[in-house]
């Protein structure tokens, strides 16, 4: 590392003028978003500062317990967010439960895989590697799981007569739901595929940019980014398959009947 330029509070204050300029724009043009904009900016500052404090503490202790606890909190927030993004989630705790369980499975498997093989910090659960890695994988897995579930529950509700037509003719539940399941998995994977295709041409990923600003040589940062993209696509695929198949199972029963009564009606 060749060192980096540290930021002072005054530097941030200067940057925040741009947000204030946006707020003034909203007032002048009657956009009505200035309140939400300022609240979101304040939330961002508070949440990230808290995260900074938490990470500083975690890094200085390297405790498997506290690292695990932080990971659990991140996963629970991701589960809540994935549920909130659906129009008609599964009723009861099923939506949150299935979403969270599949994200836990996918994100932790992929994170542990990377920590024990490619990255190999000592100990493997060193929070300086584990937490940022989990955060990146989890964030993308969450998007995939939320899109997959949204598309599944909407698709089943809208294509009810098509699904039931196959059931009536003696198809099993997974045969009957096949087209809806495939569409859901496709829409879950689309963001990862698109971002892999556009990365480096249209966009410079945030992590790589951060490393370069932090003084890492570009080729080193690029290698990290390539690994991260692989991990993200693995996590998204695994998480979406688990969440979509689990929910498809819950949307039908052992007699192979379609159970739309198990969706929240809005």
């Amino acid at each position: 590392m060749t060192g980096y330029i540290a930021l002072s509070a005054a530097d941030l204050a200067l940057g925040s003028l741009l947000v204030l300029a946006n707020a003034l724009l909203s007032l002048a043009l009657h956009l009505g978003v200035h309140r939400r904009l300022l609240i979101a900016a304040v939330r961002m500052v508070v949440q990230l500062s808290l995260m900074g404090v938490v990470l500083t503490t975690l890094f200085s202790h390297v405790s498997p317990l506290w690292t695990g606890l932080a990971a659990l909190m991140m996963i629970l927030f991701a589960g809540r967010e994935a549920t909130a993004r659906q129009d008609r989630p599964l009723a009861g705790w099923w939506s949150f439960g299935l979403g969270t369980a599949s994200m836990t499975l996918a994100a932790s498997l992929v994170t542990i895989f990377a920590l024990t093989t490619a990255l190999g910090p000592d100990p493997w659960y060193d929070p300086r590697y584990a937490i940022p890695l989990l955060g990146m994988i989890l964030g993308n897995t969450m998007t995939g799981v939320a899109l997959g579930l949204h598309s599944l529950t909407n698709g089943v509700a809208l294509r009810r007569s098509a699904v039931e037509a196959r059931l009536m003719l003696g198809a099993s539940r997974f045969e009957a739901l096949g087209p809806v399941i495939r569409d859901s998995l496709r829409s879950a994977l689309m963001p990862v595929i698109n971002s892999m295709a556009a990365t480096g041409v249209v966009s410079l990923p945030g992590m790589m940019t951060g490393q370069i600003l932090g003084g890492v040589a570009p080729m080193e940062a690029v290698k990290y980014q390539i690994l991260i993209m692989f991990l993200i696509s693995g996590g998204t695929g695994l998480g979406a398959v688990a969440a979509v198949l689990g929910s498809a199972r819950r949307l039908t029963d052992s007699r192979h009947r379609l159970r739309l009564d198990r969706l929240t009606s809005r």
Partner: protein
Amino acid sequence: MLTVSHLKRPGLVDASFSLSLGECVAVRGPSGAGKSLLLRAIADLDPSDGEVSLEGCPRNSMSGPQWRQLVGYLPAEPGWWADRVGQHFRDWAAAKPLLDRLGLPDEARDWPLTRPSTGERIRLALIRALANDPKVLLLDEPTAALDAVAVAAVEALMAERVAAGLAVLWVTHDAAQGERVARRFLRIEAGQVVNEECRA
């Protein structure tokens, strides 16, 4: 014989009756009385309580898909899952004789689903259901959207299948049709099977 005893579900109070193989029973009753709910419950498409068995075999002794292959159901508005008509048939060539009989052309195989009329869809769905070779067929107003020629063709085809041993439960609003196709009637009012009358 299809035996239904104390079949209950929301919208259906308590249905008990039987249907012999080679018999067609017409189901009548006002709209919203629960006729379609009864057919869906027999086909095991919705959860229900009570006993339903076919030739002594309770339906719970077999899987849902196995049951629905034996007990076919043609809803008033059949569903379609693929883009073209032909993709809904396992074996188009085998369906050809029935297509001819019900006045549907061979080119229908490549029709997009936006092409067939309501009446054509019903006939296609009937052929699709018969292709499974079910023992029992539940029909929900199959001829409501058909012209006189097609109605006669469907009735003749069903009469032939019934004579060959198929059991049919035929929901119809048309009293004259009921008299033509069935000798026995079920009347459903407010979710209850209220009487069965026999015609000499």
